[in-house]
């Protein structure tokens, strides 16, 4: 599982992939994509909000759900309490409403800094409430997934968040509302086997790790998974992902998709005509 130490917060950052030393301010301008090798740094939910939606438009929902410990699991309350203090978040997902290029949407963003982005009752509850509220408010939904998997300390209650959230996605669908899932590095386990892979459109950031069995499971069970199987690229090749994309193209792609779903025309096309197709699809047939 990921800890907060994996996420940059200094003046200089070293790219974990190519080890280039990068000036943080410059990296921020590149949306935390290494200019040398293209590595996508992991983002806090607050950073994701900042680079995705209109400034000041994000209104969080359900930030006051109480700490739960359904199994009285040893040390769990303390762990959650520590995570809350360390991150300033109440759980591993932030949900709410925002606008993107003026278009209103419901938004969910998972945060690895909170117990590895694992899914317990509160995460499942916030996702389910997000879907239900967007049905009521007639909003499209975008969820950025990042998760180490299930919250072991909640055991079966954690497992039951999978049907709960999957069912809630279904309600959104019945209401004719679109759901765009964005898979970011890393997305594992229970989240992949529920709302992460139920998007009408599924987008993945290039290089993102993802898979059904989490890294710890792979490690302790000596699963012999070949390198490269648990990647966005592998999933894309096997038909599981619609759009494999660099983070720098992500906001514009979401903008166009939200326009399409809402039946409104993208006003000033940031890239209209033939060249845009090359950007957004794999339209390499042009000579």
């Amino acid at each position: 599982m990921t800890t907060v130490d994996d996420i940059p917060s200094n003046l200089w950052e070293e790219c974990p992939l190519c080890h280039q030393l990068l000036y943080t301010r410059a990296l921020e301008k590149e949306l935390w994509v290494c200019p040398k090798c293209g590595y996508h740094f992991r983002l806090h939910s607050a950073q994701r909000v900042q680079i995705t939606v209109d400034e000041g438009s994000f209104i969080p929902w359900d930030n006051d759900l109480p700490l739960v410990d359904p199994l009285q699991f040893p040390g769990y309350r303390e762990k959650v309490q520590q995570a809350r203090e360390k991150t300033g978040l109440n759980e591993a997902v932030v949900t709410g409403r925002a606008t993107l290029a003026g278009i209103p949407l419901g938004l969910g963003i998972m945060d690895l800094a909170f117990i590895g982005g694992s899914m317990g009752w509160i995460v499942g509850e916030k996702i389910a409430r997000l879907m239900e509220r967007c049905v009521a408010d007639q909003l499209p939904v975008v969820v950025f997934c990042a998760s180490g998997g299930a919250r072991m300390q909640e055991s079966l209650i954690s497992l039951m968040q999978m049907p709960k959230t999957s069912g809630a996605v279904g309600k959104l669908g019945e209401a004719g509302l679109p759901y765009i899932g964005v898979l970011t590095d890393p997305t594992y386990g229970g989240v992949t086997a529920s709302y992460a892979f139920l998007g009408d459109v599924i987008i993945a950031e290039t290089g993102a790790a993802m898979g059904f069995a989490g890294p710890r499971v792979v490690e302790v069970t000596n699963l012999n998974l070949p390198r490269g199987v648990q990647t966005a690229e592998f999933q894309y090749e096997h038909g599981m992902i619609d759009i494999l994309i660099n983070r720098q193209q992500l906001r514009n792609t979401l903008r166009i998709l939200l326009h399409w779903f809402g039946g409104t025309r993208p006003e000033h096309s940031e890239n209209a005509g033939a060249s845009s197709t090359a950007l957004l699809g794999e339209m390499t047939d042009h000579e």
Partner: protein
Amino acid sequence: MSKIHIPPSSEASSEQDAQQQVELARHPQRPYTLDYLDRMVTDFVELHGDRRYGDDGAIVAGLGFIQGYPVAIIGHQKGRSASQRRRRNFGMARAEGYRKAMRVMRIAAKVGHPILTLIDTPGADCLEQSESRGISEAIAANQRDMFTLPVPIVVVVIGEGGSGGAIGIGVGDRIMMLEHSYYSVIAPESCAAILWRDSSRNEEAASALKLTAPDALNLGVIDSIISEPGEGAHTDYGQAANLVKEAVLGALTELGDIPPAELMAARYEKFRKMGQPKELQ
């Protein structure tokens, strides 16, 4: 459509005529789906994969805007260079292509936007890879399910309308053919080989199969013919795309006001009645 002379049904098009249409439909420079998309669609976002097995390069699917209207677009894609043709499997789609097509059509249906399909295939892929993944089931399911999509569906045969591979994305409310495309249950060479054990009698077969656009119109299988510029679409991509765009927009405008239940009932009736003898009508 003024350019097109539609022969009365008793008067078959000449053998040469039919064969010529087949050759034009297969012209190496004929515009393909992506050539049309480039010229008539803005902000196209291509979607990939069937969420089951893989992504089929022989079918392009995605979301875009035609004159500002959101439309889901599905089309066969052939390749031009050797490597493209391999990647696109010569426009012969596999099960995963038809399943991707239905997945994207359902996205449009969910939010109430229309669907455009562009047909250009010599036929569906029929190798072991396709048999093992259920090519027949995929094509069958698409035809069944296209009747149940509560949004307008416009179908245009832009090149080769090759049999099951074509009809797998070919159920709709308005079916159109480009002037020099063809639509047939089998390629003329194969027909000649099967019926007469002589594939060199392809011209004769092309004529007998009644596969030209005017033939299909006479048979009541299509609703209209879209004219092509000059000697054919390959001579002027821009103009060809304009003519297709106009025809598609015209059809979408007509269909746009029809309530979904009526639309689907009419779609069912349309195909239900094809080929029905006059005395039973």
